[in-house]
C-alpha cells in the first residue's frame, strides 16, 4: 500500500516573527497584569476601553436584515452603490472628476487590500517604477510593495529634533527620486507620526511632484477621524485632483465607520478621461479575480446604507466627531499630566499638535520595551502609541510610564 513520504516537505520552513502591529494585541491578551494598557493597534476604544460598534452601523445592519437582501456574488469590482458613495465621499459629489467619469473605483479589502490592488497594478503596468514611502510609515506598506515586487525607497518625513515634519528633507528626497516615480502619501493623520503637512506644504509637495512627473498614491485610512470633518480630511486629495494629477487613492472604512473586521475599502484611480478610467478598472478586475474573485458584500452594504440615507449620514458625522473629540480630549489630558510630572522643561506639545489616532512619542525601541515590560503598556516598537486605546482615567499612569522610559532607559 502506498504510504506518504516520512519527512515533511515543509521541515525547513522557519518560524516567522509575529506581526509588529497585530502581534502586539496578541501579547496584550496574554498579559494577566491588571494595569495593562493596549496602545498597540489603531482600533477605537470608548472611555471604558471597550470596542465600539457605531450606532448607525447597528441601524444599517438591522435594516439590511429586515430587507432580507440576498447574498449573491458581487461583481468583481464590488457593490456599485458602495463604489459610487465612496468616490463621492472622497472627492465631493459635485467634483468634475466624478461628473465626467474620470475615476476608476474598485471595492477592495479595506485599506490593505486596496493598496495591494494598486501596488499590483503598478508592478504590472509600470514595471521598474519605484514607489517612495515616508520614513517612517505604516509597517505593512513595505510588505505590500515587496510582495508585489515593486522597488521602493524612503523619503525623509519625521524630524526627531523638532518632533515634526522634516519638510526640507522630504522635498529633497522627492526631488532626488527618478522622474516618474510614485509617491505614497498619507491623506491625513499620518501613521505612525500623526504629523501632517500644512496646506501650504501640501501645495509645495504637489509642485514638486508635478515638476518631476511623479504620480501620487494616497493612503486615506482616517477620513473624518483626523479633524472630525470628512471634507476637511479629504482636502489634500482634492487639492491634488484639482491640479490634474493622475493618481491612486486607497480608502478604508475600518476606523471612521468602525468596520475593522468587515474589510471594506476601495482603490480609486483618477485619470484624465472616462475611457482611460474604464480601461484601468477592467485591468484592476483582472488582478482581483485570481486573488479572491469578488469582495465581501456585508461591509459594502453597511457603508452604502449609511451614506445613502441622510438621517444615518448625519448620525454618522456626529459619531465620528464624538470619536475624534474623545481622542483630542485624551491628548489634552495626557499632555497636562506630562507637563505636571516632568519638570525638566521638555516640550511635550507634540502630543497636542499630532493629528489622528496615533502619537509618535519619540521613544526608542528599548524605551518602548520598558513601557511594556515594566509598565504593561503595549505599543509598537517604533515608539507609536494609539490614543484611541487610552482613556482619561489612565492618562496619569501613562504619563508616569513615558517619563520613566524616556529618562531612565537608554
Amino acid at each position, binding site marked *: 500500500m*502506498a504510504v506518504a513520504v516520512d519527512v*515533511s*516537505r*515543509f521541515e525547513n*520552513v*522557519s*518560524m*516567522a516573527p509575529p*506581526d509588529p502591529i*497585530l502581534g502586539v494585541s496578541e501579547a496584550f491578551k496574554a498579559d494577566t497584569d491588571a494595569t495593562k494598557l493596549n496602545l498597540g493597534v489603531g482600533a477605537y476604544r470608548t472611555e471604558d476601553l471597550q*470596542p465600539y*460598534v457605531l450606532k448607525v452601523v447597528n441601524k444599517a445592519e438591522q435594516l439590511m*436584515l429586515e430587507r*432580507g437582501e*440576498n*447574498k*449573491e*456574488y458581487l*461583481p*468583481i469590482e464590488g457593490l456599485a452603490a458602495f463604489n459610487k458613495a465612496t468616490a463621492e465621499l472622497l472627492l465631493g459629489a459635485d467634483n468634475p472628476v466624478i461628473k465626467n467619469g474620470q475615476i476608476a473605483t474598485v471595492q477592495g*479589502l479595506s485599506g490593505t487590500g486596496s493598496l*495591494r490592488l494598486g501596488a499590483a497594478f503598478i508592478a504590472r*503596468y*509600470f514595471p521598474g517604477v519605484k514607489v517612495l514611502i515616508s520614513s517612517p510609515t505604516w509597517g*505593512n506598506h513595505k510588505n505590500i510593495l*515587496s510582495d508585489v515586487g515593486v522597488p521602493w525607497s524612503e523619503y525623509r518625513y519625521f524630524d526627531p529634533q523638532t518632533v515634526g515634519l522634516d519638510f526640507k528633507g522630504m522635498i529633497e528626497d522627492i526631488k532626488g527620486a*527618478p*522622474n*516618474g*516615480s510614485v509617491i505614497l502619501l498619507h491623506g491625513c493623520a499620518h501613521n505612525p507620526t500623526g504629523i501632517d503637512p500644512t496646506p501650504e506644504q501640501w501645495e509645495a509637495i504637489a509642485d514638486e511632484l508635478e*515638476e*518631476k*512627473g*511623479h*504620480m501620487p498614491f494616497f493612503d486615506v485610512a482616517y477620513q473624518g477621524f483626523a479633524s472630525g470633518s470628512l471634507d476637511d480630511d479629504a482636502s489634500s486629495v482634492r487639492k491634488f485632483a484639482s491640479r*490634474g494629477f*493622475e493618481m491612486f487613492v486607497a480608502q478604508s472604512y475600518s476606523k471612521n465607520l*468602525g468596520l*475593522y*473586521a*468587515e*474589510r471594506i475599502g476601495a482603490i480609486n484611480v483618477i*485619470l*484624465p*478621461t472616462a475611457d*482611460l478610467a474604464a*480601461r484601468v478598472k*477592467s*485591468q484592476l*478586475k*483582472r488582478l482581483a479575480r*485570481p*486573488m*479572491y*474573485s*469578488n*469582495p*465581501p458584500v*456585508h*461591509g459594502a452594504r453597511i457603508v452604502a446604507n449609511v451614506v445613502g440615507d441622510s438621517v444615518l449620514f448625519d448620525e454618522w458625522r456626529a459619531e465620528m466627531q464624538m470619536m475624534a473629540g474623545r481622542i483630542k480630549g485624551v491628548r489634552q489630558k495626557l499632555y497636562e499630566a506630562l507637563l505636571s510630572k516632568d519638570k525638566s522643561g521638555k516640550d511635550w506639545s507634540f502630543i497636542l499638535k499630532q493629528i489622528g489616532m496615533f502619537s509618535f512619542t519619540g521613544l526608542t525601541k528599548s524605551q518602548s520595551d520598558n513601557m511594556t515590560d515594566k509598565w504593561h503598556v503595549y505599543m509598537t516598537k517604533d515608539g507609536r502609541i494609539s490614543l484611541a486605546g487610552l482613556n482619561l482615567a489612565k492618562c496619569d499612569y501613562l504619563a508616569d510610564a513615558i517619563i520613566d522610559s524616556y529618562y531612565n532607559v537608554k
Partner: protein
Amino acid sequence: MESFALKRIAAVASHLTPTAPPPQQQQALSMEATASAAAASVFDHLEQAPEDPILGITVAYNKDPHPGKVNLGVGAYRTEEGKPLILNVVRRAEERLLADRSKNKEYLPITGLADFNKRSAMLILGSDSPAVVEKRLVTAQCLSGTGSLRVGAEFLARHYGVKLVFLPTPTWGNHFKVFMNAGLAVKTYRYYDNKTRGLDYEGMLEDIGAAPSGSVILLHACAHNPTGVDPTPQQWEGIRQAIRNRGHLPFFDSAYQGFASGSLDKDALAVRTFVADGGECFIAQSFAKNMGLYGERVGALSIVSKSSGVATRVESQLKLVIRPMYSNPPIHGASIVALVLGDGDLFSEWTVELKGMADRIISMRHKLYDALRARGTPGDWTHILKQIGMFSFTGLNKEQVQFMTREYRIYMTLDGRISMAGLSLKTVPLLADAIHAAVTGAKA
C-alpha cells in the same frame, strides 16, 4: 498641464521594459500631447481587458433587456421560482448575531475566526481525523475558495521546492490565473474523456506518473467543475497511490461538499482517505454554495503536515502571505458558518436544506433529460443524469453556445457548461428547445 503630462509620459516611458512601447511611440505620445493635453496619460498603453469568462456571463445577462433570459452561467443556486436563496439557518444565525450585544467588529486575527477554522476543518476532515487529533493541521480563514487557493499557492511558491502545479483538463477557468499569479508554473493532466463523457482514468494516472516528483496536484474533492465527473472510490484509491508513489503534494479544491451526493460525509471521502494515509495535503474549502454565502466570501485553507512543529511554523508563514494581501479576513460570513456548525439544531437543519438544494438539482437533471428525449433531440443525453453536482457539461460547442445565447437568451459559459442550479420547471422547456435547435440547426 501640457508640459506636465509630457514630463510624466517621458518619465514613465523611461522605466518601461523593452517589451513596452518603443521610443518612437514616446514621440507619438508627445505629439498627441501637444494636440490635446487632456488625452495624454501614462496609462495610455493600457487596453480594455475582456470580461471574465465566467463572471462576465452575468454581466452580459444583466445587460440583456429581454424578459425571457435565463442565466445558467455562474454556479449560483436558484429556487424553483428562479430566485436566489438565503438558507433559513443563515437567516436565523444572522438574527442571533445581530441580537448578540457581546459581538463587535474588531479585527479578526490574520488567520481568521478560530472557532470557524476549527469547525470548518472538522467538517471536511471529520472530528476524529488523525490530523486534528495529532495537531498536524493548520487552518486559516480565507476569502472563499478563490482566496484559500491563492493563499495556499503563494505559500507554496515561497516555501515549496517544486513550483509546479498540475490542473485537470478541463478545470474551473480561474484556477490557472490563481496559481500563475502566485508564481507557480501550471501544467495539466488528462481528466475528461470527450468520447465516453467519463473519466480518462488511465490518462490521468499516466500523467500523474509522468509529472516531476513532488509536483502539486490539484484535485476537485467532489462534483468536478465543469464536468461533473468524479472518480469512483476505487479510482480515488488508485489516484491516491499514484500521487503518493511520486511524492506529489495533493491540493484539494472543495467547493461543493454536500452538493455532490447530498451527504457531507460522503462528499468528503476522497479528502479523508488521503489524510488517513498519514501524508500531507492542502485543502481549500468554500462555503459559497453549500451555505449560500456567495457574496460573504467564506472559506478556509487547511494544511495537513507531518508534525505539529511543522504546522506551527507553517501557520506563522501563512500570516506573512496574508498580512500584505488583506491583513485579516472578513468577519460576517465566518461568524454565520461558525454558529451554524456549532449549534446542533442549526447544523441538522442545514443538512436538510442542503439536501433539498441537491435534490432539486437532481430533479432538474431528470426534467431536462426527459424534455430532450421528448423532443427527440439527437444524441445520448444520459450524461446529464450521470454528472454530479451543480453543473452539466453538455458537450455543446462554442458556436452552439453562442447560438443559444443569441437566439434563445440562454446565458452559459462557452465550454458548454450549464449551471443546473439555475434551472426551474418553467425554464427547462426553453433550454430544451434551445439545445434542440442548436444541435439540429446551428452551423458547426
